């Protein structure tokens, strides 16, 4: 094990700042070169996970665009537009978080640390479920009115 690998965690916790995080996003391998290059298969798996998250984000964005275009006017004013914008926002958060998670995982693999855990999937699941529940309620109200 190299020296930088053994001292990695302390370095990471003490020197974390926004600029470094951004640099990490754009060039996780070069800045600063910590630890050692992991098995390329792990890196590719990390990359595919990133792409899967990007597709999730794109699906949310597509959902937002579809909401705005195909949903009939809902009983509450601007609920349709609000829903569309919320989906677009959720999609962008998923995309940004995907890079961050990718960079942090890449770093953890270089340092031989535990992979970063995340509450994000659970939060996303709850938000999506809540949104679906909201839609079901409005659809039921719409049906009861007729």
């Amino acid at each position: 094990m190299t020296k930088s690998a053994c001292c990695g965690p302390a370095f990471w916790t003490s020197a974390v700042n926004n600029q470094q995080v951004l640099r990490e996003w754009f060039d996780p391998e070069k800045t600063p070169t910590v630890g050692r290059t992991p098995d390329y298969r792990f890196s590719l798996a990390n990359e595919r996970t990133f792409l899967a998250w990007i597709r999730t984000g794109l699906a949310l964005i597509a959902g937002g665009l579809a909401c705005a275009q195909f949903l009939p006017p809902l009983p509450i004013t601007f609920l349709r537009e609000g829903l569309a914008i919320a989906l677009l926002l959720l999609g962008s958060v998923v995309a940004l978080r995907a890079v961050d998670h990718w960079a942090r995982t890449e770093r953890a693999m270089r340092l031989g640390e535990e992979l970063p855990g995340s509450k994000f999937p659970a939060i996303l699941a709850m938000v999506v479920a809540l949104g679906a529940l909201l839609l079901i309620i409005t659809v039921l109200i719409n049906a009861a009115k007729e």
Partner: protein
Amino acid sequence: MDDAAARTADHGAAAERTRLAWRRTALSAAAVALLALRPAITHPAHAGRWIAAALIFLGWAVMVAIAYRRARGLTSIPPRPARRTVPAFALLALAFALLGGLVIAL
């Protein structure tokens, strides 16, 4: 040791699966771009919607170019790990969301 690892056969076809994942993602982006184009087609007189749709398609073209570039990096043995292509792709997805918002607002 590194040389031996480099010559190990890739039984999991990791590089190919990654190449396909890039392609799949570019296809998903195409679906989003088409959805953003629809309002312009239904109201052809609206110039703003055409501009937003054109920008989204431009972003999509860049995404496809990035995916192809990355596919070339994956053909070397061992495959080169991704670097700037990843954040660039995510930023383009973010741009999709912003332009999508513009399409809705217009």
